[in-house]
């Protein structure tokens, strides 16, 4: 399944750094997402793009992860040659990530 089936996301930019939040639709899936959407997995997903490190922050009470990706925006919005210089669409790109379906939960049908 795709990450998109379990979570929603929003991308923001500051200079050449992109951050993408990944938020579970159902907080019961948060641990599964946390287990599979790691710093390494995100770095691999965006390998062609990144020139820097990926750092993950966790906000379990909100079912949210925040990925901070250095060197992700081709030099930053003010000088990038990209069509989407802000990298706003990177959130949608990340939601295409494939991950195994979470195990059936009791009562989840």
């Amino acid at each position: 399944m795709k990450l998109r089936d379990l979570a929603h996301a929003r991308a923001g930019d500051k200079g050449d750094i992109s951050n993408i939040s990944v938020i579970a639709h159902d907080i019961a899936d948060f641990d599964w997402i946390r287990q599979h959407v790691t710093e390494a997995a995100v770095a691999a997903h965006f390998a062609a793009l990144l020139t820097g490190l990926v750092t993950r922050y966790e906000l379990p009470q909100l079912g949210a992860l925040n990925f901070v990706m250095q060197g992700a925006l081709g030099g930053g919005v003010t000088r990038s040659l990209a069509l989407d210089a802000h990298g706003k669409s990177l959130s949608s790109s990340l939601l295409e990530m494939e991950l195994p379906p979470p195990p059936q939960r009791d009562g989840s049908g």
Partner: protein
Amino acid sequence: MRSIRIGAGSGFSGDRIEPAVELAERGGLDYLVFECLAERTIALAQQARLKDPEAGYDPWLEDRISAVLPACLARGIRIVTNMGAANPAAAARRIAAIARQQGGRMPRIAHVEGDDVLDAVRGTDLPLLERPGTAAQIGNAMISANAYLGVEAIVAALSAGAEIVVTGRVADPALFLAPMVHEFGWSMQDWHRLGQGTVLGHLLECTGQLTGGYFADPGVKDVADLARLGFPFADVTEDGSAVLGKVEGSGGEISPRTCTEQLLYEVHDPAAYFQPDVVADFSGVRFRVVGPDRVAVEGGTGRARPETLKVTIGYRDGFIGEGQISYCGTGAVARARLATEIVQERLRLIGVPVSELRCDIIGLDSLLRGPLPQGRDEPLDVRARIAGRVETLAEARRIGREVEAIWLNGPAGGGGATWQAREVIAAASVLLPRTQVTTRFAFVES
């Protein structure tokens, strides 16, 4: 406990105006805040000011202020805005002129000065934050340098009776935090309340992004009535607790899921959100639904402010030439690729020195990053895009013209060619000791 209602009237310079009017007329506001400055806006505004000493403020100030001023004056709603950009004093004079034209009561209008630190930064060894180098190495290309100010001068202006406060560069959340500090008399060492107030300012500052804008995804996240999206307000109480809402009957949604997306927008470490007045901590924030489109915000806090202020430097950084042309039908992707290859070879043949070139096939790979899905059908409607970085405007125009020439000299069936050439105003940052920044306010003479 006493509370005030602060509304968000714009989240960027080009934002819609009608939702701000709706808030002013029907939102029961005490304050209306307009955030209008992007990273490099001041550099562009500074260039305008160099040509005309009365220019250099937000290009939409006239439209925006004219639209909301009658309701704000009639209801005693105070306005705080960074629409002053590179020239807050001229912006304040312009607002006074608008009030005069409208023939109503003349509000007390203050402008905040002190963010322009060009003289303190130019030629110094201050290291750039984003890349190797110093401020001095930017040299004559530097157009502007503006420190992100905190609430101090805005609070002073409000305390002196200002009904409209116009600033240049101020940390965006501070535009919202200032009315809280003024109304509740929060200590500037009360890191907990300043942190929670910063959470609220951060949530509000992008207007519609809190109320269901930048959010909808049909079938997954449906949002009602986006064409009439309501902008948000916060009912803030003396202890910093708050409830977010929007005008009844307006479009959009305020819910924990919209709030969570916006809480993390443009945030790095949620436990250390650096602001001029506080290092805010978003890591323990919780959202609780307390009514239809009403969400309580709890758990924000903070710690002692940094001893430096972030400064954004705007500088000239060469030119970009860019062109696009479309293809459709079977083989469209191959023809679009051929077009980009021809342009690249042409640029070599005619000797345009391009330091960086980017070719995209819009509809195939212009946005999507990451592993491409296997076995998908090739799109039948695509657009070739070529963008290159060069030193001069003339060279940038030659890139655009080479794309346009593909029309008659390139692959079959190319249509809708467009091109542009523009100067790049780039942004860089340094940290300046706060002792080198002095802020003050003044009332406009009327």
